[in-house]
């Protein structure tokens, strides 16, 4: 790590319910206070308490947008974390663990998955080591990693004594002790972590106090027993007003800023947190201009928890018919249930946004793990001929603006818009500048607030889009059956064709009005011979891997598909024409993006890097994957890093 450019990776691991989420939140704020850009992602089991969970974060003085392995610092709050992450720290990095766990045998750790126990024990026994934490620590030391044992129990006792509280009541600050030990060794001044604690626990004085005392106690301990790290240079973001958001937050923010008035959902991981965050802001203060000109003192956004996902999409459709600007949020299993209604929304020409937080399938799969496995169902959802729009966001900022664009497109084109996001986005925290919603104009298409005389809801038009008066504005018939311009049911073959061809013209209008430039992003040297094609949250790790490849003299460009429907056919064809090695990257086993590309532009993506462990995509996986393809010409590289 050079003095001017900071690039720091850190993992904190412990039991679910043991404060890993808070530790991550505090760590991100600490490093933001230090002036860095921060990205951090959480891995956890589908479990309430006890199973292993960890937060992997990266702070950089320029831009942080992915995590990598091995990391510089690791904090193992319990024995399972020691065994799970013993290979995750790089040479000369720090491995901080609770020295009180040294004697713990691996077989005594009930929540630890058996196959992992077997792998760890095999590895240790081949090296002539036993099966305790102390043995694992010996192994870590043998790899030139600096091990720091912190007596968490002793420090908890000291924290309790100094704050005048019982040891039991301060037990929850163990995570802060681990974090403080790492920051003391790294060279982060303690005022930053104290500021972070005050920010994160704002208003909860009883929680703040023992946490701050724990920080002081731990810094003293590190100073007395090891050595405080030399202070790192401050980052360039110091003094700037920023936000720390996860993907769920930022989509909720985008929707509210984008004029959404009603959202429905049925609880599902990892979508529910988006609706919950939104519900916390169901009444907000508008800007002064809105107060004055619209006479609105407050803006209300109705979030409804329904009885199932069928009802979630059904209610959203009903609300849209009555003039609301709507979305529903779900994940793969919920979207499967919604499919019949997607088809209904198409024939009823209802503007609706469906946000899909993809997770690892099939079926219930791994509810808290990542995947990009719902592209095909999104493209082909709904029976019958069902055109729709499908877009995918690559990072937190894109997700904000895409949420507004999705609402706009739904209303402009009067058809379902599927917004693909994933667990990696929902579960990762990112420092961002406050987003500026004025960058995307709010559009409501051919919405009528007044109708004189006769009204045809499904008027045949050249662009395939009919003026839309909500229920209550004009008397109308809306039917899920094939209907005429008035919405009245018909099975007449001539009318049937007229109405179906109107739908086809709508698809043409979508192709015309969503410019190619909004369907993709191209990064890197446009003349590079190596082309990476990907979508969604692989964006961050790809951009970071590209930096690393360019340091090796390998020039790479990256084509990010941002909308699958409409597809960036022209731009992708051009990018492929100008490249010698073409590599696709995605987090599913069927190579769904490759299939859609073949179907849409009749071209193959000859090389693929795929991941389907359910874990986040890492920088080094793409770096090594690209190198392997360049060196060996492999058709497919399967990557699987991360515990």
């Amino acid at each position, binding site marked *: 790590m050079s003095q001017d450019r900071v690039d720091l990776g850190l993992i904190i691991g412990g039991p679910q319910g043991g404060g890993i989420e808070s530790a991550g939140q505090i760590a991100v704020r600490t490093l933001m206070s230090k002036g860095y850009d921060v990205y951090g992602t959480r891995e956890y089991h589908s479990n309430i308490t006890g199973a292993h969970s960890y937060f992997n974060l990266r702070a950089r003085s320029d831009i942080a947008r992915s995590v990598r392995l091995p990391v510089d610092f690791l904090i193992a709050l319990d024995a399972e974390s020691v065994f799970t992450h013993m290979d995750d720290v790089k040479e000369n990095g720090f491995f901080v663990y609770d020295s009180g766990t040294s004697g713990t045998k691996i077989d005594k750790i009930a929540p630890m998955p058996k196959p992992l126990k077997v792998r760890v024990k095999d590895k240790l026994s081949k090296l002539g080591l036993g099966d305790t934490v102390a043995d694992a620590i010996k192994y870590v030391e043998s790899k030139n990693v600096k091990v720091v044992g912190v007596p968490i129990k002793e420090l908890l006792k000291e924290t309790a004594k100094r704050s005048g509280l019982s040891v039991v009541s301060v037990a929850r600050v163990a995570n802060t002790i681990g974090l403080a030990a790492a920051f003391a060794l790294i060279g982060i001044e303690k005022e930053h972590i104290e500021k972070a604690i005050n920010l994160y626990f704002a208003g909860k004085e009883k929680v703040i106090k023992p946490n701050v005392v724990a920080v002081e106690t731990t810094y003293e301990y590190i100073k007395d027993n090891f050595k405080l790290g030399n202070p790192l240079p401050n980052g360039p973001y110091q*003094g700037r007003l920023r936000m720390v958001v996860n993907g769920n937050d930022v989509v909720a923010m985008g929707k509210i800023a984008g004029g959404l008035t009603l959202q429905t959902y049925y609880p599902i991981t990892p979508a529910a947190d988006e609706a919950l965050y939104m519900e916390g802001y169901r009444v907000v203060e508008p800007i002064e201009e809105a107060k004055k000109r619209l006479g609105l003192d407050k803006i209300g956004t*109705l979030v409804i928890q329904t009885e199932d996902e069928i*009802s979630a999409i059904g209610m959203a459709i009903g609300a849209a018919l009555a003039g609301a600007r709507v979305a529903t949020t779900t994940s793969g299993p919920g979207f499967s249930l919604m499919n*019949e209604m997607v088809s209904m929304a198409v024939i009823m020409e209802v503007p609706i946004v469906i946000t899909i937080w993809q997770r690892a399938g099939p079926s219930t799969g791994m509810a808290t793990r990542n995947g990009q496995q719902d592209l095909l169902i999104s493209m082909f959802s709904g029976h019958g001929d069902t055109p729709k729009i499908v877009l995918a966001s690559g990072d937190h900022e894109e997700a904000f603006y895409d949420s507004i664009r999705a609402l706009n497109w739904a209303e402009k084109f009067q058809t379902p818009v599927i917004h693909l996001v994933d667990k990696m986005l929902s579960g990762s925290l990112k420092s961002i500048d406050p987003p500026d919603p004025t960058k995307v104009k709010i559009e409501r298409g051919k919405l009528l607030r007044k109708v004189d005389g006769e009204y045809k809801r499904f008027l045949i038009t050249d662009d395939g889009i009919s003026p839309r008066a909500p229920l209550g504005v004009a008397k109308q018939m809306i039917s899920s059956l094939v209907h005429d311009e008035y919405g009245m049911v018909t099975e007449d073959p001539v009318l049937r064709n007229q109405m179906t061809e109107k739908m086809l013209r709508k698809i043409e209008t979508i192709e015309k009005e969503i410019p190619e430039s909004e369907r993709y992003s191209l990064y890197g040297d446009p003349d590079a011979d190596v082309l990476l094609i990907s979508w969604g949250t692989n964006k961050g790790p790809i951009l970071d891997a590209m930096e690393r490849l360019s340091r090796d003299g390998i020039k790479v460009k990256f084509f990010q598909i941002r909308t699958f429907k409409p597809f960036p056919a022209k731009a992708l064809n051009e990018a492929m024409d100008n490249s010698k090695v073409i590599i696709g990257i995605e987090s599913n086993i069927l190579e769904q993006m490759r299939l859609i590309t073949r179907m849409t532009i009749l071209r193959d993506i000859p090389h693929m890097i795929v991941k389907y462990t359910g874990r986040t995509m890492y920088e080094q996986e793409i770096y090594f994957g690209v190198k392997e393809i360049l060196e060996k010409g492999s058709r497919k590289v399967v990557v699987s890093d991360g515990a």
Partner: protein
Amino acid sequence: MVRNWIEYRTDAWVQWCPGCGNFGILTAVYKAFAELDLDPKETVVVSGIGCSSRIPYYINVSGVHTLHGRPIPVATGIKLANPRLTVVVHSGDGDLLGIGMAHFVALGRRNVDLTVILHDNAVYGLTKGQAGPTLPAWFRTKALRAPNYQDAVEPVLIALASGYTFIARAYAYHAERLKEIIKEAIKHKGSSLVQVLQPCPTYNNVMTPKWYEERIFYVDEKYPDYDPTVKAPEERDRKIAEILDKFYKDPNKIPLGILLRDVSKDTFEERIEKIIPGYLKNPPGLRPTDLDGKSLIKPEEVFRDRLVKA
């Protein structure tokens, strides 16, 4: 009467079989709407799929013909987006109590100000006569290859248990009584169920008009002192006990009329107003979303819990 009921007719061909109970229901609806003077533009009839769910095409108000089992979610969305609309759901027994049962129960929990008119003929007519969820066990209607070996559900009891605040039962061939009940159901603030018993002359050759007419009785005739009103939440369970005790003693008798009118509960819209003050004035379907395309908020002024001064 302000409007003539003829105004509520459309020129669509009514495609039900001759003698279908739906005709009685349709006539009662025309007259109820006329007597309530419902504005066609501000009235929405929402239906599912099935013979009875064709009804929106025949009523000259706004209509939404949805999917099998799903009229309630769509109707709820319409009503919550614009509470000023009068929303009436028409649904068959298969639609409401078979495929759509989850929504039927959920509506009772919410008490949205909707009226649900259940066209109950105990068979799936449009698919040619399979057993509906209200067909009693061991009845064998003519399309069945074997007697019905599934038990029937009782929608009134489910509605009582789910929290509906207006529950009534009527008979399709008694159009005048039916009309009065529908009017009361629409006027009631909250979720209303009107179960309409309806002979199907084509497929239900067991539950014929004669079969019904031997069993039905009107509660206000047999028990003139019976008051269906519940004024306070704690009275509801006692009222349910009274209904069971009085009207369900004889399994061969079917009570008709207004069984429950619970005025003790807030509607869903009133509950939303409590958590989103201003909701009724500026509901989601009517409130502004932008200022000439500009967002109404600044994220840094609203989402303060996520701010960090680095």
